[in-house]
């Protein structure tokens, strides 16, 4: 399928999957090992985000200021995200050319980028004025939209991510 690929830089993806490390991961117990760590990391990424999103939606934990909930969870989100990204990259390398063409994988990347944009917008716009709504019940519309969008996007990431393995 690599001869007539519609994806840019076909040589690059082929070069990645031909690396000794890629082949080592693909042909040994490293692949399932990295994949199980990936599931664990994803669980912690989305688990910590879920707590913040539900708080922003005003569904739970209204007694805890939004800024504090965000601050306490973000380190777990980022720590687990680094693990998920490294393990995910390891999985990707093994069949880079096929994954990059996989529609589920492409959708997953788009959803991840949208989730990142949503997070950045919330961080730099809405959270900047958090002192005005930190304990407000319900939280302002901008916070509720950010929480709801994040929740839907990350659920989408999980569905798309799980679908990757069913298409390849």
């Amino acid at each position, binding site marked *: 399928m690599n001869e007539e690929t519609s994806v840019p830089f076909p040589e690059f993806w082929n070069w990645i999957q031909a690396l000794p490390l890629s082949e080592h991961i693909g042909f040994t117990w490293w692949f399932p090992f990295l994949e*199980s760590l990936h599931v*664990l990391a994803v*669980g912690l990424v989305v688990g910590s985000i879920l707590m913040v999103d539900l708080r922003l939606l005003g569904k739970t934990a209204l007694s805890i200021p939004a800024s504090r909930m965000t601050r306490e969870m973000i380190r777990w989100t980022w720590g687990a995200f680094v693990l998920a990204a490294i393990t995910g990259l390891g999985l990707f390398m093994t069949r880079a050319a096929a994954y990059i063409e996989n529609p589920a994988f492409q959708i997953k990347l788009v959803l991840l980028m949208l989730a990142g944009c949503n997070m950045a917008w919330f961080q730099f716009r809405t959270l900047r004025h958090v002192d005005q709504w930190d304990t407000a019940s319900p939280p302002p519309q901008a916070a509720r939209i950010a929480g709801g969008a994040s929740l839907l996007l990350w659920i989408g990431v999980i569905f798309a991510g799980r679908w990757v393995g069913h298409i390849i």
Partner: protein
Amino acid sequence: MNESVVAWLAGSAAQEAAVYLLGNVPGLPPIAQSLHILGIVAVMSSTTMIHLRFLGLAAPSQNVSEMISRLMPWTWWALLVNAVTGLIFVVGRPDRYFLNPVFGWKFMCLVPAVAIALVIYQMNKRDLGFWEHTTARLRSARVMAAVSLVLWVGVVLAGRWIAYTDYLYFLYE
């Protein structure tokens, strides 16, 4: 014993129904698996976060008793979702699970982990703040939290490895 479970399920109406659903409902396998992962997500943000709180590693400002009553109902719902989504596959292909040692390891981690979660939840429900009233209780809660964290990691890792066990045997042959 596992062989008899397989024999009992093989060819049963339940197995036929599960196989039919998995083969004929478009996208059912990835949908059920994604819901199963979302269940893991909910466990991670409820029980696991509470364990990390007990160990002083997460959410330092949040009260642990309040966290237990706020978050643990999520654990029970998640476990229900995971039981249903998992059963579709187990009933559909019982030999793949009941004759697979990794499936057994998963439940050797899962059963004590759920038992610990139940103890922590029930004692706190009966007496709010139970785990914080004495240092001895707090210490035992911390031990349970540490053990349980390891068990949950084991559940997730073993769960993912079930699908690779054939591959593993192939490697070591």
